[in-house]
Structure formats: structure tokens, C-alpha cells
């Protein structure tokens, strides 16, 4: 029933709209709160300090496989926050734009794509924190950081896919909007954000872990790109990427199928 070909052609024709909406989101995020940039920096820093306190002072862990615990935590947090903010924004992209959706037509997927911009800018600020920290702690950054944009693309695809599943269903079933924040809140702990995958023992189930939670592989890949000599299992990361692409495709298809009925439930 849906002609995907024309749909994506239409999105391409609306590139200008993507930029304008992204600009709008950035403006709302950074110019309307007095300390927009300040919050973008404070959020990852405060998480970092809390966990440094827990690990160093309470659990007395200072490093994992020779990498300072601060770097392990920070490298996880910056990617997790990127996921958290893009996923949340995508899940809310319909309810946050009712004034547009009820009045004019354009491919609704554009709302999800453009809202990633805020997460990207937030990421840039937290990435600066990481660079500063890596100098202070003397953990050199290698050439492999040029792979980070590609990693961000994968995380974005996963956020869009998963976020769209929530966005598409939470309009009709309002209860679903309560589940999204839980995903971000508890996902943080079941994903190696503040610890390394090497710190846990999953035995034979490790591959499944990478598949059902693609962020495991994506965050580990992030550490690999940031930290020299950080060892990863490329096969398992491949599983995570594959799973990311599947989630993305399902999310997009479900969303496109439902996008013309959103208005009836708003």
C-alpha cells in the first residue's frame, strides 16, 4: 500500500525542511534556555562525578584493564547520552509537533530525522569534555576517532528505529509514553556504559546480549575508537550493527504505515 520509493523521494525533496526543523529544534534547545550550552556540559559531567565517586570511593575500582575508570565511564556516557537524547526526542517527535501535523502534510519521518540534530550538538559538547579528560588522564586519542561520525550514524539509526516504534504507538495508546523514559533509565545499567563488557561474564549468551541490545556493541565500538589498545570482538559488534539496521527498518516501516492516522488520535 505504501510506495516506499515515492516516500523517500518526497523526503529528499524536503531536505530544506529537515534543515529548518533542525535549526528550530536547536534554537529552542540552546537559545531559549539561558544556559543551554551549560546544561549540555553539566549533564554528562554530573553523571561522571557520581559514578567516579561510587567506583573509586565506594567500590575502590580505579581502572579496568589498565584504562582509568574515568575514561571508561566517560566514553560510555557520551555515547549513551547521545542515544538517550536522540531516542527521547524521536519518541516525542509527534506529540511535540501537533501544531504542524494537524495543519499541513509532509513526510512525518522528517520530524524524527531533524530532531537528531540536537543530540548531535549535545554530543559535540560532551565530546570536548572527553578530549579534555583524556589529556588530563594521559590517555592518548588515536587516529581511529575519525570513525566516530559513522558510529553516531549507527546509534542514530537505532534511536530512530526504536524511537519511531514508540512515537507511532504512543499517540493512540498514551500509556506507551511512560515506557520510553524507563528504557533510557534502566538501559543505562544493562548496557556497558559505566563498565566495560570485559567486566561481566555472560558465558555463551554473550552473542545474544549483543543482538538484543545493539547498544552493547555500539558503545564498545565507541570505546575502541577512542581508546588505543582497547580490545573488542568484531564479530559480536557486527551482530549489534545488523540488529541496529533491523530495528531501524522495522521502526521506519511501522511508522510510515501509521503516520496518516496520527491526526485522528491527537
Amino acid at each position, binding site marked *: 500500500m505504501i510506495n516506499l520509493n515515492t516516500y523517500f523521494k518526497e523526503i529528499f525533496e524536503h531536505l530544506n525542511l529537515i534543515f529548518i526543523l533542525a535549526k528550530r529544534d536547536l534554537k529552542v534547545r540552546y537559545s531559549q534556555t539561558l544556559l543551554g550550552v551549560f546544561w549540555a556540559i553539566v549533564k554528562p559531567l554530573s553523571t561522571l562525578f557520581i559514578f567516579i565517586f561510587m567506583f573509586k570511593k565506594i567500590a575502590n575500582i580505579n581502572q579496568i584493564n589498565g584504562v582509568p575508570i574515568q575514561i571508561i565511564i566517560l566514553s560510555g556516557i557520551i555515547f549513551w547520552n547521545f542515544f538517550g537524547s536522540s531516542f527521547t526526542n524521536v519518541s516525542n517527535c509527534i506529540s511535540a509537533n501537533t501544531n504542524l501535523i494537524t495543519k499541513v502534510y*509532509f513526510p512525518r519521518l522528517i520530524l524524527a530525522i531533524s530532531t537528531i540534530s540536537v543530540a548531535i550538538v549535545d554530543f559535540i559538547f560532551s565530546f570536548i569534555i572527553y578530549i579534555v579528560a583524556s589529556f588530563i588522564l594521559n590517555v592518548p586519542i588515536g587516529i581511529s576517532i575519525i570513525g566516530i561520525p559513522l558510529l553516531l550514524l549507527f546509534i542514530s539509526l537505532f534511536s530512530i528505529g526504536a524511537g519511531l516504534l514508540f512515537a507511532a504507538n504512543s499517540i493512540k495508546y498514551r500509556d506507551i509514553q511512560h515506557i520510553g523514559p524507563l528504557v533510557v533509565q534502566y538501559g543505562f545499567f544493562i548496557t556497558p556504559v559505566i563498565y566495560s563488557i570485559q567486566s561481566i561474564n555472560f558465558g555463551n549468551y554473550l552473542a545474544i546480549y549483543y543482538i538484543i541490545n545493539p547498544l552493547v556493541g555500539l558503545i564498545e565500538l565507541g570505546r575502541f575508537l577512542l581508546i588505543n589498545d582497547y580490545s573488542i570482538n568484531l564479530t559480536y559488534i557486527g551482530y549489534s550493527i545488523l540488529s541496529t539496521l533491523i530495528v531501524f527498518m522495522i521502526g521506519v516501516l511501522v511508522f510510515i504505515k501509521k503516520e496518516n492516522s496520527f491526526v485522528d488520535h491527537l
Partner: protein
Amino acid sequence: MIVKVENITKKYLVKNKENAGLLSIISKKERNEFYALNGINFSINQGDRLAIIGNNGAGKSTLLKILSRITSPTSGSISIKGKVASLLEVGTGFHPDLSGRENIYLNGAILGMKKHEIDSNFDQIVDFAGSQIQNFLDTPVKRYSSGMYVRLGFAIAAHLNPDILIVDEVLAVGDIDFQKKSLSKMQEVSKQERTIIFVSHNLTAVSNLCNKTLYLEKGKMRDFGETGHILNNYLAEHQKNILIQSYENIDEAPGNDFIRLKYAKLEPKLLADQEYLDIRNSFLLNFEFWNMQADVNLNLSLHIYAATGECILNVSTESIRLNTGIISGEIEFPGNFLNDGNYSISLMIVKDQSIVLYNFENLITFEIADYRENAKWYGKWPGYVRPNFPFKLSQTTNLKLNA
């Protein structure tokens, strides 16, 4: 064919319980189906101006939403060729936090336009929207008045050169100057072989702007075709207001122990080719009452009310001495007197020129249609009276004035 609508249905599920949420998946009961649109079929060609008319709740807005692709029909199919710009209700897709300027670019982008294309139309839009908006171009639109909202919305929709322009009731909001301006703009747009779909209660505007009309009633297609034909049927039907009241039996007649209504009738004096009353026609009101009081001084006081509830006029008869039995009277209203609109007549029976015995409210309700010859302007004619006094303009002297 630029727009083709085939057998469209739009069904809503009306839940008795508000927002049942996830539980509603489990409990399928307590749902009522409601057809906002049912079996709509029509097609229009490029350059057509289609009016959609009908009472509130007829499905006009739902149809516009489907045509502008905001929602999809439950069944049936539509095919639309070209870019659609729509102005639904008040304001198009404005983002309240963005300024007027930014919203112009936002709406252009929604129509799939590139920045330079919007740039080239920008001045025209601002110019059309008026000086008030020019001064507030960099103010977030949430601070705009509803009039400014409509002006900017219309200016954007009309100037971004859509193939199809969908407009819902712009004439209901905004001042007369702007109504005039927007109607002539729509005429201009239609001359460029663009298609217009227009919803309005202003039948004068409809008859002058649109060549085709779709008449909806309770979600169904009542009629579709040439505007003149459809409007004639529509008006003839809608003027079946209370033009006559007649009672055979005195016990069932409205009134009280002093006086009861026997008969009242409003009779328009129509011209040969007319089917309904318009501003040119005079009309006659006849009435009869049963008077149950012997030897009483009575006079009548007649009020005409506009649809808004304001009293337009009050005329009264002399007080005369009457006896029990049937009393009757008549009054003729001249043509070129009342403006177009809906009116209701009430008759008050007054004893001794001071005591109101009974007030027959809404005795007769009627509608006067508009009529203009060779009109160039179709906005609502202001005022309650529409006299045709001699009013002349002429050239007295020829002079060359170099201003």
C-alpha cells in the same frame, strides 16, 4: 484530472470512555462507529474552483483534511497531482515559538521549496500580509493576534505558488479589508490555471469565485456540479425556515388565556425567475389571532431580530378596541431594505399600550440572500440595512492636476 476522489469513507471510533489507553486494546466494547464521510465521489480539473458547502458537521473540514493529506481516508482512494498548500481553520502549520519570518521559511519548506525560491516570494508575502505584520516579522507568532495569524497564513499559502490551494473559511476571520484582499487574490490565483478548493458559508463569495460546488450533508454527498445549480437547490431548501405557522385547534395553539396564534405567514414577492428571497424582494407578513377578551384595547408591537440576537427594528400598530373573536393584520416590508442574513420576527400583544399580554417569539424565521449585479467584490456586505438610495458621483470639471 488534478483531483480525483473515489468512494471515500472516513470512520471514527467514538469511545464512550475518555482515553482508555492500553486497556482499550483488551476491551473492544463501548465503541461507536461514526462516519464523518461516507461515499464521496468527485473529480475536478486543473483551474477549477471548487466550493464545499454544507452545515456544521457535514464533513467539510474532514474532507479538506483528507485532501490536504493530513489524515488518510478509512477506505476509498484519492489522487492529487501537484503541490498542495492548505489553510485550515486559523493559521497553517505555524510553529508558535518561531518568528513570522521563520514561519514563512518553514511553510515554504513544507511545500518542498528551496530557500532561494522562498526568498523570491518573501517580499510579496510580507507585503500582502500587511504593515502590522511587517512590524512584527521577528516576533514569535505566538504573540500574534488571531487576525494577524490568518493574514500571514493566507499570504503564505497564496504566494508560495501551489498547484492546489485549499482554504477553509478565511472569510470568517479577519477584517473586511483583508477578506476583500484575499478573495481577489484567490481570483487572481485561479486565473493562473491553479486549482482552488474553498470552504465557506459566504454563498456570495462561493457563487462568484467557484465554478463547481460540492454540497455535503451529514457526511454524505448531497449534490455536486455547477455552482449556480447547486446553490439554487441549497438556498431553496434552507429557506424552508418557519415561513408559515397555522393552527386549526385553539387548544393546541401557542399563546395564553388571553390570546392565541391562529395563523402567521411570510410571503416573499419573488420575481419571475427567482426561487428564493433576496435583498431586492419585498415581503408580506399576514397573521390571525384568537382573542379571548371582550372589550379590550390592544396594539401589536413587532420586532425583527438578526441572527446575532440584536433587535433591528420595532414597529407597532395603533391601539384599537377589540372584542372576542378572530383578529387579523398584515405588514409589508419593502425590498432593498434589510441586508442579507437570517432574521426572526416576534410579535408582542400589548394591552392598554402598557401591559404585555403575550410575546410570540420566533413567530417567523427567514433568510434573505445576497444579490449583486456585476459584482467585483464578494465579502460580506456590512450593516443590517441595505438601502438603495440615490447616490451619485459625477465629473463636474475637467482639469489637469499635476500632483
